[in-house]
Structure formats: C-alpha cells, structure tokens
C-alpha cells in the first residue's frame, strides 16, 4: 500500500515538472496559430502568422541553413583529418592541442565575437558578408566534430587497421578513405548532426557578428520578438521548432544505435 503511495507521488511530481516545462512550449505554438492571442482560442486558428513569417523572414531561414551546411562542410574537411591525426599521435602536444580545441566552447560566444570583430572587422567586404558569421560558427562547432570523431577512433584499434592496410599496399590517402572514414562513420554522423543543430540555433556569436543584411534565424527571432506582434514571433518559433526538432530526434536516435552497436564490435 505504502509503495503505491510513493509511486503515485513520484508520478505526480514527474507530471508536474514535465507540465511546467511543456506548457510554455505549447503556449508559444498556440500563440503562433491563434488569430488573436489576447482574445484566446475562441478567436480561431490560423496559419496567417506562419505565412507572414515566411514572407518577412524567409531569407534568415535560408541563410541559417546555408551557414549550417557550409559550417558542416568546413568542420568535416578540417575536423575529421584533425581527429585522425590526434588519434594516431601519441605525443604530449597532441593531447594539449586536443584540450585547447575545447576552448571556444568554454569562452563565451560574445567574447569570441568581439575578438573576431577587433581582428577582422576592418576587412569591410568580409565583415559584411555571411562568411563572417560562418567563421564564428566554425570556431564554435569544430570541437564538437573533432571530439565526436576522436571518441570513435580512440575506441577502435586504429593503428592496427592502418598497418594492415599499409601492408596491403594502401597509401595514406587510400587508408584514410577506405579504412578511417568508414570506421569513424558513427562519430562523423553524430558530429555532423551536432554541428548542424548548434549552427542553426547559435545566437550569441551571430548576434554580434551579423549585419542587418546577414541576419540568421535566431537573430531574426530576437528581432521579431522586439518589433513584431507576439503572434508573428511565436509563429517564427514554430518554424524554428519544425527545423530543429527532426535534427534533435535524429541525433538522439543516432546516439542510441551508436552505443548499441559497440558491444558487437568486439
């Protein structure tokens, strides 16, 4: 009897907590879909605000997606070989480098942005293009890619595979593409999803680095909250959810299959 009471008490607590967190999300979504938020649901549901967001801010959505993909490309090209190098190297410098890579994660985005502006703000064309934001995003997301790939490479006998492939005549390039990349795939996938998700949602750096012509989605969102009707801003949030939630689910799913596969590897 006592156990049952405990069970229901715990259940209630969980539900209250979940409710506390979920209600604002639901409210926000509803706000984006009702005709007049202050009147409430009885004013009726509409997609008008969503279309308005599309009209006003679709450039920020495309830009954010573009930056996220460019960021992904750069972190893949730079991050995977970097992780490979770090995994093979046994030197102390490699470990130190590995640690410094996390620095951009620990330093506040605003500080990084300021440093970038101080150093490169003088290059006008660069400062005014979306590439300026891209640089900030790469700095911020690269460690996630490297760490994610490195974690997988450190868990397999990479050196032995390398030596075996080399004994079969494979040069460095072949070894990288035939052996390293396929075996690092779980890490590359997890890292990629992380990079895209982080880049799309990144606000601190983007806020400092953007110009009125290079707004990203989160910056546009802040802008709409400040200057538009609440319904528009809420509809904007809804659009953001639609973009980011599938990525988050994919990440979650991938993380699970990634860990589930490990025992069979040995």
């Amino acid at each position, binding site marked *: 009897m006592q156990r049952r009471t405990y069970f229901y008490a715990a259940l209630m607590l969980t539900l209250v907590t979940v409710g506390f967190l979920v209600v604002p999300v639901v409210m926000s979504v509803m706000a984006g879909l009702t005709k007049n938020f202050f009147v409430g649901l009885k004013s009726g549901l509409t997609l008008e605000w969503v279309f308005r967001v599309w009209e006003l801010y679709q450039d920020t959505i495309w830009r954010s997606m573009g930056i996220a993909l460019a960021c992904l490309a750069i972190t893949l090209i730079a991050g995977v070989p970097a992780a490979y190098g770090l995994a093979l190297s046994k030197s102390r410098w490699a470990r130190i480098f590995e640690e410094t890579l996390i620095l951009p994660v620990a330093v506040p985005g605003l500080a990084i942005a300021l440093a970038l502006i101080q150093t490169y703000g003088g290059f006008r064309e660069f400062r005014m293009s979306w590439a300026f934001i891209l640089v900030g995003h790469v700095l911020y997301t690269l460690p996630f890619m490297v760490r994610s790939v490195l974690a997988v490479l450190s868990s397999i006998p990479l050196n032995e595979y390398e030596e*075996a492939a080399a004994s*079969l005549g494979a040069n460095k390039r072949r070894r990288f593409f035939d052996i390293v990349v396929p075996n690092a795939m779980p890490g590359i996938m997890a890292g990629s999803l992380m990079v895209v998700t982080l880049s799309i949602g990144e606000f601190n750096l983007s806020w400092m680095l953007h110009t009125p012509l290079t707004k990203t989605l989160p910056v546009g969102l802040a802008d709409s909250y400040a200057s538009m009707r609440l319904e528009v801003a809420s509809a904007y949030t809804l659009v953001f959810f639609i973009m980011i939630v599938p990525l988050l689910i994919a990440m979650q799913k991938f993380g699970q299959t990634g860990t589930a596969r490990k025992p069979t590897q040995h």
Partner: protein
Amino acid sequence: MNSTSSQNTRINLRRCAKTFGNTQVLKPVTLDIQAGETVVLLGPSGCGKTTLLRIISGLEAPDHGSAILFNDEDVTSRPIEKRQVGMVFQSYALFPNMTVRQNVGYGLTTGQGDERLTKADRDTRIETMLKMMRIQDLADRSIDQLSGGQRQRVALARAIAPRPKVLLLDEPLTALDATLRDDLRMEINALLRDLGITAIYVTHDQSEAMALGDRIVVMSEGTIEQIGTPEEIYHQPNNMFVATFIGATNALSGHWGHKGFVPRGMEVPVAALRMAAQGGNLMCFRPEDVDLIEDGDQASGALKGIARTIAFVGSCHRVIVELPGNQTVTLESAWCHPPHPGDPVLFKIQENGVLPVWSNEA
C-alpha cells in the same frame, strides 16, 4: 598451385639495429634468408623478435647503417606499402567495415607492385583464396560474425592474395585456444610449403617454432643467440640460454675431470669426456636422453637417485629424481614398471646425450 605461387624472394639483413630513445632494443643483426624458406624468430617477450619483423616489413625504420635487401635490391628506405609484404597480425586486424570477400580482395585494389588487375582477374583471385583457406561459405559475412579461427583464415587469405614477396606472421596463433592452434599450425605449415613463399614467423612458443621453421633464429635481449634447423637448435644448442629455452634441459653441477664429468656429491664420472662440452661446472642433458637400468645390473657411470614425483604424460612417464648432493633431474622414459615415490632409480646418460654447452653456474 601455380596460380597462387609467388616469386621467390631472398632476404638479406645487414647490421639491422633499432634504438628507441636511449635503449637499443635490437643489436645489429645480420641474417640471410633463402628464397622460399620459412624462418622462425623465436624468443621470450622483449627479445626484439617483433621489432626485427617490423623492420623487415617496413613498419619500423631501422637505425642508420642498417640495410634490408629483397633479392639484392635495397628496400631500407621504402615504406611498407611499397615493399609488397604480406602481413598477418596477432589480432588479425581485419577491417570491420568490409565483408570477408572485401577484406581478402583489398590488397588487389591498391595497385601495389606492377600488377594491374581487371575486375575479373580480381574476382578469380579472391575465389581461389577463399577456396584455398576453405572460407567460401563465409565470403559475404561481416567480420564480427566470425570465430577466432575463421578470422585467422581470412587474415591469411588477405595477406597472400596480392602475391607478396614475403609473408610475415606476427604470433598469428597466440589468440587462439590450444586445439585450434594445433590445427591451424599444421594448416599454415602445409600452406607455406605449397606456396613456396619466403616466410618469417615470429613466436615465443618453441613447439610452434619447431613445427614450422626450416630454420629457427633464437633471440634474447636484442641479439641472435643461435640460427639453425630445429634439430640443430635442439641437439646442438650454442649456449645455456638456447639449451634451456628450447625443450626441457637438466643441468647437473659438478666438475669436469680428466675422465669425464663428476657430479657434485659423487666420485665416479658419469659422462665421458667428449666434444666441446667440457668446461665450466655444469653438464646438460635432455630428460629423454637417458637409459634406464631396470634389472638392477650395476653399469659403470650410472647415476642412482630416489624417485620423488611421477607423472604419466601419455607417451611416457616423467619422473623427477633426487640425486646425491641435493640435485634433482627430470627423466622421461617408457618405464615397464614405473617407480613409486621413494623408489630407487638407476639410469645412465646416453653417450650422445650431453649437450655441447658449458657454463659457470651463476
């Protein structure tokens, strides 16, 4: 077997040494390996045998002044991928992202050597390899679906498929259980004979070395102790290390008099003076190189002791005998009536049984 035989390669090592940091783990080694020969590098762990193998493969660069020749061609500065060596690793190192077939065929796609193979050539070669190692049924399996023995077969097939100049095997059987090890050892032996390929095999297991090697190179602490056929190594060890590392050896202490060896605590010589064995204060012989005297007739030069431990080991009995002077020896012989603990045992060391090694007891 013509389709799988490879060109025979002679290997010459000239003063090959390796230093890690301040330690020279491999003292300068000079070794000539005949084409088609199987040479076993044998020694305890840390003796430098794996380092030597890795130098031959090109995975490790030797110290300055070393030279490695494949058929008189200097390959010292070539990395492993340009040496056309086949390698089998202790851990197999099969690629988990590829099927069995893809693993076996990988070396055919890298364009090593001067061979340019068409897709059809490659497929035929892979099929031949799979058939030879009897793993056709596993061709499309992934690596983590294979047992240890199957993995080893795949690793062998993968190493041989590109027709390497030399096959290098680094303790390939260590990770397997005993029965499987014996079976695969025989298979590897037959395979190496069939292919006629030059092979270098590293192991710490002396029975593996005896069974596989045309010649055995016994190593310890970075130097070669002896090079010879299994028979030579066993019957004519160069020194105490080889005598004790290969097979079981009894070492009796005593002194060499002008009539032969007199064990401690005894008055008459028990082994005739012969060969270069004399010297030092030890006399070594194998447990099986003794004649038992079971009918009680006292022959000259016989040793008499008390049986302490008796074990039946299948082909014979192994008896540990305590001799006067507080020495024990192990005897292996087919007793008609094996002794019981405490029984007297009378035996003679066979005339050729004394090993040509001498040492001053440490």
